[in-house]
């Protein structure tokens, strides 16, 4: 069951949106497509939800072929597009009722599934969807995607532009849905969310660069990264970039992540170099590697 994607390619005129992509999502798995805007994530979603036909390759979703059995797929999956696509001039309740009717069910029948989420927007059930805040729109959209109790849930950048608190809550909701046996394919440009998935595919410019569990991806990273800090971050980045054997220099929260080309790299030498460049309050220590570090090095 789950999702099986085999050698999918799709081009729009000259632009190759996705190129020869293959991956499997196991039944009941929470699988993340991690990549920036323009990586091809939405194209993959649209192909798997039967809204777009691939140029090459095949895919099976919830046991159905995306070309031959598109009607079955549409009944078996829930899809929350990246762009808010509910009816702005219908109320919260009307939207939910509408989507339930379309799928030949009722709100009551599957209320169990959406209860946790719907309770949070229920106080606003008579408000028009267009007048909801971003976080509430997102919760309503998730309810509408779940109302027919789908086997597979597709969430295209559900947390883009959402504040850290609501993002955290959203992921707690996803974990709960997963426990109910729903297979979830979710995409995000936020690298910190990758660690919350069972497995992830790192994707850029239409190609999958890596598929594995977040832990394995981090553990298999071979380079040593140093946290470097000094009083003047702007100057620090500039000077680190001019350090003879620098491999990469990136601002990373309160630190700058520094990687050296040489295995013989000695932090003390760097300390001296920075001191000579008039930096103060210098800290150099090994950094904790994150998915974002790995991604930037692909």
């Amino acid at each position: 069951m789950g999702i099986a994607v085999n050698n999918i390619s799709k081009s729009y005129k000259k632009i190759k949106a996705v190129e020869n992509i293959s991956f499997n999502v196991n039944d009941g798995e929470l699988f993340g497509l991690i990549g920036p805007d323009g990586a091809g994530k939405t194209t993959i979603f649209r192909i798997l939800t039967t809204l777009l036909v691939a140029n090459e390759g095949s895919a099976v979703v919830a046991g159905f072929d995306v070309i031959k059995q598109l009607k079955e797929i549409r009944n078996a999956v829930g899809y929350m597009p990246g762009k808010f696509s509910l009816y702005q001039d219908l109320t919260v309740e009307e939207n939910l009722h509408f989507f339930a009717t379309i799928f030949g069910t009722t709100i009551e029948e599957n209320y169990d599934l959406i209860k946790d989420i719907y309770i949070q927007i229920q106080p606003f059930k008579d408000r028009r969807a267009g007048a909801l805040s971003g976080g509430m729109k997102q919760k309503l959209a998730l309810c509408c995607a779940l109302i027919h109790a789908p086997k597979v849930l597709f969430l295209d950048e559900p947390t883009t532009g959402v504040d850290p608190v609501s993002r955290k809550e959203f992921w707690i909701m996803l974990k709960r849905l997963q426990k109910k046996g729903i297979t979830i394919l979710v995409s995000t440009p936020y690298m910190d969310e990758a660690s919350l998935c069972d497995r992830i595919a790192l994707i850029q410019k239409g190609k999958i660069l890596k598929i594995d569990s977040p832990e394995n991806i981090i553990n298999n990273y071979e380079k040593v990264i140093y946290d470097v800090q000094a009083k003047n971050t702007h100057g620090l980045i500039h000077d680190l970039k001019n350090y003879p054997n620098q491999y990469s220099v990136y601002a990373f929260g309160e630190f700058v992540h520094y990687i050296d080309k040489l295995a013989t790299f000695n932090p003390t030498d760097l300390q001296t170099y920075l001191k000579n460049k008039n930096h103060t309050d210098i800290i150099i220590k090994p950094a904790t590697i994150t998915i974002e570090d790995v991604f930037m090095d692909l």
Partner: protein
Amino acid sequence: MFSWICKSISDYKSQGFSKPWRFELNKKLCDFVSSWQIIMEKEKIITVKNLTKKFGNFTAVKGISFDVYKGEIFGFLGANGAGKTTAMKMLIGISNPTSGEANVAGFDVHTQTNMVKKSIGYMSQKFSMYDDLTIKENITFFGGIYGLSRSQIKQKITQLVEELELQEVANNLVGSLPLGWKQKLSFSVALLHEPKIVFLDEPTGGVDPITRRQFWEMIYTQAYKGTTIFVTTHYMDEAEYCDRVSIMVDGTIEALDTPKNLKKQFNVEAMNDVFLKLARNIE
């Protein structure tokens, strides 16, 4: 300093400059003047006092007060619906405050909105350049809107295309550019008229990690030149890059300080935890 200048002069002499001292003294003088300016100009460029905005019975912004200094990178954070956008709209002169005062670049947001608009740059979270115009055409258009002369526009085009390394695509439609490039271009266009303050509303949403960092390097460079940066973001690692950060919760500013002090105050390791603590406590 004297010995340093002498050394530099001999360095330049060896590089074949005929009158090195003139060049070097000028440069040193400039450095001196600019460092003096930094001391002198820890001046307030935005002052906000009890700024309030009501929509009917709903108070979106509840009497907020704060100052922003010249050349500062000021992070304006908050949860969705906390009132950030409403506050920002008042500061850029497109929404009239219900009560309270705000002065932006020396102009009152009640009475001098046109002057406010002329003194600031604004980059919206939604890409708002014309997709069906080329890069050059967009720059020309926005330059014209900001009242730049033809020769200034021409010069700006050359400068921007070079700085952003867009030589090969300068005559391509903006719609065909990747998001990261679009955002860098938008930022540059918001700076076309050399405003004193630039407001950036979630400039890096959805942008890839590398471009996101390049974008922040552009912000740093601009701040270094003396432009004040007022920026909102949902990336908490970016909050660490700001000189000072304010966090808005439910229409009020609940915290305002340097990232370092905020982390100390809330006894946590990262800005993300500061944010979670503040927003959680309210609920």
